[in-house]
């Protein structure tokens, strides 16, 4: 089987994305959920880079820089939230934090 590099890269990105998504959906530990979101972000970033190399344009790589910056910011906020959550509830189970239900 002889895959075109672009196709292979997009396939890898897709697999990574789905793995991250499944992990977000089935994990309860909120740190793992955060990790999974990072995996999904990186999968998306990989897709951008592959697309950029496919068309020979730098836009996708620039976009990946943005994704990295955003992910860093998101992780810092997310970790702060997790700390607060643990402080309040003494657990990392996201299902316990269901006070905002309607």
């Amino acid at each position: 089987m002889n895959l075109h590099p672009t196709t292979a890269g997009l396939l890898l990105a897709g697999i990574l994305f789905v793995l991250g998504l499944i992990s977000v959906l089935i994990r309860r530990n909120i740190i793992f959920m955060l990790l999974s979101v990072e995996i999904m972000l990186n999968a998306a970033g990989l897709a951008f880079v592959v697309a950029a190399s496919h068309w020979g344009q730098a836009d996708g790589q620039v976009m990946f820089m943005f994704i990295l910056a955003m992910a860093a910011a998101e992780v810092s906020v997310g970790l702060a939230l997790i700390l607060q959550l643990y402080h309040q509830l003494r657990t990392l189970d996201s299902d316990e934090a269901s006070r905002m239900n309607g």
Partner: protein
Amino acid sequence: MLPALIPAFPFLGACLLMLCWKRVSRSAVTVIGCGSVGLSAIVALVVAATVAGAGKEPLVQHVWQWIQVPGFAAGIDFRMDALSVVFTLVITIVGFLIHVYATGYMHDDEDYGRFLACMNLFVGAMLVLVMADNLLLLYLGWEGVGLCSYLLIGFWYKDPANNYAARKAFLVTRVGDTAMAIALFLLFEYMGTLNIQQLLREAPLLWDKGDPMVTLIALLLLGGAVGKSAQLPLQTWLPDAMAGPTPVSALIHAATMVTAGVYLIARMHVVFELSPAAQTATAIIGAVTLLMAGVSALVQTDIKRVLAYSTISQIGYMFLALGCGAWSAAIFHFVTHAFFKALLFMGAGAVIVALHHEQDMFKMGGLKKMLPGVFWIFLIGCASLTAIPFVTAGFYSKDQIIWLSWAAVGGHKAYWLAGVLGALLTGMYTFRMFFLVFYGEAKTKVHHIPGAVMMVPLYILAVLSTIAGFIELPHTLGHVTLFSNWLAPVLPAVQMAQESVALEWASQLISAVLALGGIWLAYVWVLKRPQGMVDFLSMPGQVWLQGFWRRGWDIDALYDALIVRPFVYLSNINRKDLIDKIYTGAAQLTEACHNVMARTQSGILRWYIMGVVLGAVAILSVLIWRLHEIS
């Protein structure tokens, strides 16, 4: 500018009080409330003197052009002629005395300022009614008194029963008002104007005597008068209107509201003269009402309800006189009635206050020694109401009506018979009340002796109830006709079918004997042989009959069965109609959707993510499918 000042003062007083009664002291409220009516009484006296001095030439004042469209104009125009001067004087002077009395009666009420504001508004609206030069302005005042009666009957609004009585008064009089509005539309349709003088001048040119259209208009006007003046068949609101404070009852019964109907018929007398049928209807309504209300007054237990039925009965006399064409006799009885009925109501108020708001006459008694002042003025009021010969004002006015109801062209022996029977009933119910309250043994302790503020107006009214009759004496007794002379430019003199001094003597004798006989019967009934009366009244048929009379001949129950219940039934059917179902269905659908959506907000993070994923998958599927279609 003088005539316009008369209603302006009470309106100004009402506005001032409504704006600031909570912020100024009670004495300031008293000064504004009484002073405004007092000032307008002074102006009314000046205007009356001017009119009298100018040879009874009416004083007309155009204040403001209210409505001006092609084909119709109505202004705020006031006209002071002989008739409106009489009404204005009675309204302002009696109204002023009632206001002064009310400051004593209501002084401890927390809503004192609101009370005086509404009373001022009431007087102002009534003044607009009697002074208006066109029927539209008259109708404004007409509705104004309706509104004020609603506000004042339901003054103690925390008790639902009072609100019910107020609502009843408002709705029942509204039936008459609707008839009157239709009469106004018809008058405008045929005559093209609502100016009263123009209507009175031109109506005889347009219609022959007995024309069906003028009969219809007169009957519709009569409908309005019947509603406001609490005559058959719209009298049911007045006894319930006793829910209001006693000064309100005095004002409604003496100076405002119930006399509006008498005024309207007297004012539109040309229209009534054109329609003999309507005049006969007026006389018959008056005669029947005075008897039915008199019988009802006979069996009441509440002192104020006796007086209420007595008012209905006395207004019946006025309608009888109007129906017979004895216009000035009706107005004369209105004047004397205003004095002695205000006196009686406020005397009853003094008794009620003294006994700590006890209104049941069978729980009173023996007050002659404890309240001597009230005893004497109440005696004068009762004597005037009963028409004790020679010394009371009520005698001269009522006897004139009784005699004219026979002798006038529009009269009939049956009217006369109703009149003298009414005199007997009046004597009975009045002195039954009097003996029950002031004689016998005391059953309730006197808490509080009424002070000078309440007593002085009563003394003035007692004097007026006695001497007011001497301005008009019958042929047999001096023949003084100051009052009918005064009204002559406005109201035509009564057409006599027979002039017989001997018959007039006989009529006066019979009615006087029957009035005194009524007093004697009351004396036997209440004081001399109460046991015999109790035995008689507890016979099987009697008990039912008394209940029937006490409930006002069950007119209320009749209306309940004929109108209220079918209306409620129909409105219940209408409540479940199809259009409503559509709206209800829409509301229920929205609510169901809301419930489904609310369930998705579980607070569990993974469900939210699942939602996002499903949404993303759905959108992507649609996109891919669309792309596939396009390519």
